[in-house]
């Protein structure tokens, strides 16, 4: 009689690899339906669950490749990147990596970046909440201290870059999209901000200045350095307007003043 561990190991192998030896080790009662058919019910349930879960997280990928191909790709993904968590809702983060190497998907070479975008949207929806930035407190900061401030992005905020126009690919494949669904892959790449506002998850295209500004803030740079980098990336970039917009949309939710100790002030 196999131990519980041996039995569960054989069960998992029989489901994942359709392994005949593992199936034999299980000792399954026949009772009118042969053991292989009984294990097949579980195999269908397990893979069916993953297909359903990943289709909910990656609806655009599914739409782009079609249901039959999506199912095959998910099955291969599940075997290559097994779930390591009790909570299936958090499964699928490695799908973009997997698609980059999945032979048939390589024809659509923007797929991995679209998968990254869909995963970012999924993650933004469950990231921690944050109170809006205290505008009055920001107004009270003396002008000479502004260059030292470090702004803080919303916990859901993520920055993405792609060589492909993934924003438009993603947008025209949304259920509520109306209009032409033609995407010119030659139109160039995208820099995107994904974050959760009061109205749900937003995906916004960024100019060069906005991208550098938000990346510098994410890297915890002081605002003086943020300003320098942004205007270098985009001459004429209106930083204070961008700051006002991101505070208003709640992509930026806080600021920290520099820690000034007494000894530093009065050596």
């Amino acid at each position: 009689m196999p131990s519980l561990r041996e039995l569960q190991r054989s069960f998992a192998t029989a489901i994942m690899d359709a392994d005949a030896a593992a199936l034999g080790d299980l000792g399954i009662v026949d009772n009118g339906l042969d053991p292989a058919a009984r294990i097949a019910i579980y195999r269908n349930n397990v893979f069916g669950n993953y297909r359903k879960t990943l289709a909910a997280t990656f609806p655009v990928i599914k739409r782009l490749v079609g249901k039959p191909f999506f199912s095959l790709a998910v099955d291969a993904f599940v075997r290559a990147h097994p779930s390591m968590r009790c909570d299936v809702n958090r499964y699928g983060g490695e799908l973009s990596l997997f698609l980059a190497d999945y032979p048939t998907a390589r024809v659509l070479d923007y797929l991995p970046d679209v998968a990254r975008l869909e995963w970012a949207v999924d993650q933004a929806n469950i990231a921690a909440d944050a109170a809006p930035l205290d505008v009055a407190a920001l107004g009270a900061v003396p002008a000479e201290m502004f260059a030292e401030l470090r702004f803080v992005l919303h916990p859901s905020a993520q920055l993405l870059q792609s060589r492909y126009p993934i924003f438009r690919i993603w947008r025209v494949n949304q259920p509520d999209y109306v209009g032409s669904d033609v995407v010119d892959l030659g139109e160039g790449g995208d820099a995107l901000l994904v974050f959760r506002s009061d109205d749900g998850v937003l995906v916004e295209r960024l100019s060069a200045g906005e991208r550098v500004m938000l990346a510098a803030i994410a890297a915890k740079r002081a605002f003086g350095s943020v300003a320098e980098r942004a205007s270098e990336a985009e001459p004429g970039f209106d930083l204070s307007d961008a700051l006002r917009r991101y505070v208003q949309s709640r992509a930026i939710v806080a600021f920290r003043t520099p820690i000034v100790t007494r000894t530093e002030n009065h050596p």
Partner: protein
Amino acid sequence: MSTNPATSLPPYAGIGLRAPHIARVRAERPALAWLEVHSENYFVDGGPAPAALAAIRRDYPISLHGVGMSLGSADALFAGHLTKLKELVHRIEPAAVSEHLCWGHIDGRHLNDLLPLPFTDEALGVVCERIEIVQSALARPILLENVSAYLRFTDDAMAEWEFVAAVAKRTGCKLLFDVNNVYVNAVNHDFDPLAYVTAIPGEAVAEIHLAGFDARGACLIDTHGARVAPAVWSLYQATIERFGPKPTLIEWDTDVPALEVLLDEAAQAQAILDTCHAVAA
């Protein structure tokens, strides 16, 4: 064990609350005695899901129903999973916390399904140990749900109902008695479902589940994707006659229908509970 009771769910009908109905339930607050949600759907740091649950909790008793704890795995429990459940229980103060009598992971790999256990002394020991860990972490008894199964192991040393009753006796856990799963297993494994009901200690039963199955193929499959079958309603009636009125939940997870369909199923369960309340009075 703590003084916190296993359940304060009222002995009336409730429904499993799924994403498509959350907005309407929040807005319209239908007359339901209680609601059940999947614990794991709220294992998140923030966003709309936990905010909605907190709002709904102000209007309804909530039962937290877990699908991922994997109480029967030879692997140890995932500590992080238990911590998240504990935090959720602290936030929501649920009327009941339940998990399934099954396993889902081995050697660190998860299959994210409710897989069948062999009914052996070793499995009994493992399940009881894990339940005691969970109950002590949560400082309350949990409810254990019997699952549908499409196979049985030749090494089984006891019947499913003997295993279930033994777990309840050893750990003091309560039972979430899924009448549909009993019926599905009775058909799939050829036993009398009433023998199962009779073998269960009624005082341990703290909640009942009802759902629909799929009858295509050689086995009945527990899909939670249809109305409760007539044979399951009959078995439910017999179950309530034996156990007395118990909090009863309509579960529907696949192709979730309009809220009205769930409310109608709940009303049918409530009608059966009412005849039982009337007899008791």
